[in-house]
């Protein structure tokens, strides 16, 4: 086996090694931001249609109609549930905008599923509590159930 052949083998192997590493990096790069997919592609009925159907329906008697801040910096702030899903946080795009230092910019979300209302934590720093429990997944809330974000307490009202 001549020197040159051995050199070429070594160079080829190092090239393969680096091609592998660089392709791995390029896959990571293209994976960075995920992919934007239409809602319909994720299975289930298209969301806008469903929402329209619900909005046209008269709210049932005894069903909550708005979300209100009962305790904290901005007591009395309210948002109509007809505009669901509602974003709660300090950010300017939040439906209920709170001036609470312990609340994240996009803290939690209140959304409907049929007649049930759910609160979902959006990866906030200090967590969202339903009663005494810090929630880790979308949790059902009913009328008068206290949801705590930061130092603020919210609840659903008729």
């Amino acid at each position, binding site marked *: *086996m001549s020197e040159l*052949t*051995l*050199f070429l*083998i*070594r*160079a*080829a*192997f*190092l090239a*393969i*090694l*680096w*091609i*592998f*590493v660089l*392709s*791995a*990096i390029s*896959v*990571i790069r*293209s*994976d960075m*931001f*995920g*992919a*934007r*997919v*239409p*809602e319909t592609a*994720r*299975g*289930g*009925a298209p969301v806008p249609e*469903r929402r329209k*159907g*619900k909005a046209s329906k008269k709210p*049932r008697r005894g069903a909550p109609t708005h979300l209100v801040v009962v305790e904290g910096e901005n007591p009395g702030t309210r948002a109509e549930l007809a505009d669901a*899903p509602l*974003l709660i946080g300090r950010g300017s795009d939040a439906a209920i905008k709170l001036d609470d230092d312990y609340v994240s910019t*996009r803290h939690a*979300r209140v*959304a*409907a*599923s*049929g*007649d*049930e209302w*759910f609160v*979902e*934590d*959006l*990866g906030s720093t200090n967590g969202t509590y339903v009663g005494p429990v810090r929630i*880790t*997944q*979308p949790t059902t809330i009913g009328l008068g159930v206290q949801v705590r974000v930061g130092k603020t307490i919210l609840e659903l009202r008729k």
Partner: protein
Amino acid sequence: MSQTGSLMGFVHRRRRGAELFLLVLALAVGVGAYAAVGLGVEGAVPADMVGYGGWLTGLIIAAHITVRLVAPYADPVLLPLVAALNGLGLAVIHRLDLTYEAMGNDQHTFARQQLIWMTLGVVLFVATLVLLRDHRVLQRLTYTAGLVGILLLVLPFLPVIGRNINGARIWINVAGFSFQPGEVAKVMLVIAFSGYLVLHRDALALAGRRVLFIDLPRGRDLGPILAMFGVSMMILVLQNDLGSSLLFFGLFLAMLYVATERPGWLVVGGLLFAAGALAAYTFVGNVQNRFNFWLHPLDYYDASPGSYQLVEALFGQGWGGLIGRGFGNGFPERVPFAYSDFIISTIGEELGLTAVMAIILCYGLIVERALRIALISRDGFGKLMAVGLGSIVALQVFVVIGGVTGLIPLTGLTTPFLSYGGSSLVANWVIAALLLRISDQARRPAPRLDPVDDTSGDSESTQVVKLR
């Protein structure tokens, strides 16, 4: 991250095709290295090339199909990185086998044993992914895992099965197989730490008194985890296993810091580390030697115990230079334990700095993926576990490669996936499986709250929440 993602109709793709593409390249690295070893050392493509390549391909394909079936959203880069490192490690061990055989006449089958261990590793990888459909189940096993971890660490002290190999009592011998239970223990302790910290992190971070400029947590919050940690450190010190104690200490500190978000812990940990290192330096002769070898390697070349091993490794890496000597043209056999702790020096000698950089980059990417998984994971337990598993790999690589290249004093640890050692390889495959499981949960689109029957109008009917 992914919650806001789901809000905007923004989801991770499955990327299984990208994974397959990377796996083909990873196989090219593994099988290519094996062929290059044959050509360089023996002057011909190895006779068992097809069998070896087929076996490796079979293992990788089995792992890939499992991921496709049971973890379709898992991270696409992790498995190829692991496969490439393992394949390269096998080839380098085989290359050393050939030289050892040429020197003495006895059969050397390290590579074959390593391939058997890799097969077992892949089997456990598949089993973990198939049996563990949701990593949050492990949170229930917090204290069980802690207990099992500590029991595993104690095992080598038992009279019949415990073995003292190379001055460290970290081995057990069952039915002819040697095994380091400590390798499995570290996975168990990661589960225990994350399960405990995820429940108590608020109490740890917020409750307690302030002493000087550090918030000290209450004893009852810190107690159990400190006990778990103290017991494992004590066992490791009694076993004379410096590398592992360093690893556990770093792991504990990293997880505590991530869980509480208090930089004060790093200060406390750094001081504790300095105190521990000083105490070890003063009272343990071995540690003093290691420091001296690190500072003045050449002065102790002929001494006993001396720095012969480290100096030969440094010579080898220096001789390898930028692109190395080529497989078969170096003398890695001059370094004792070139196939395990010092495998990086073998690679540095025969493939040069170019390959060592690629390998360190691969480890860097594994750690990056682990931290990324922690960032996008939806539950605190998964986040902490991913951080813990990632920091195991990071610390291990830093301690062993730093030691071999003379950056820090040398302490014995295995290079994950690369060096010879069954227990370490098997444990690392399980770590890879756990990371993939967490990433599958994290990257999966957020559950949609779809009512099955929206039009019936019966408010009392049971609602089915669609999960995937």
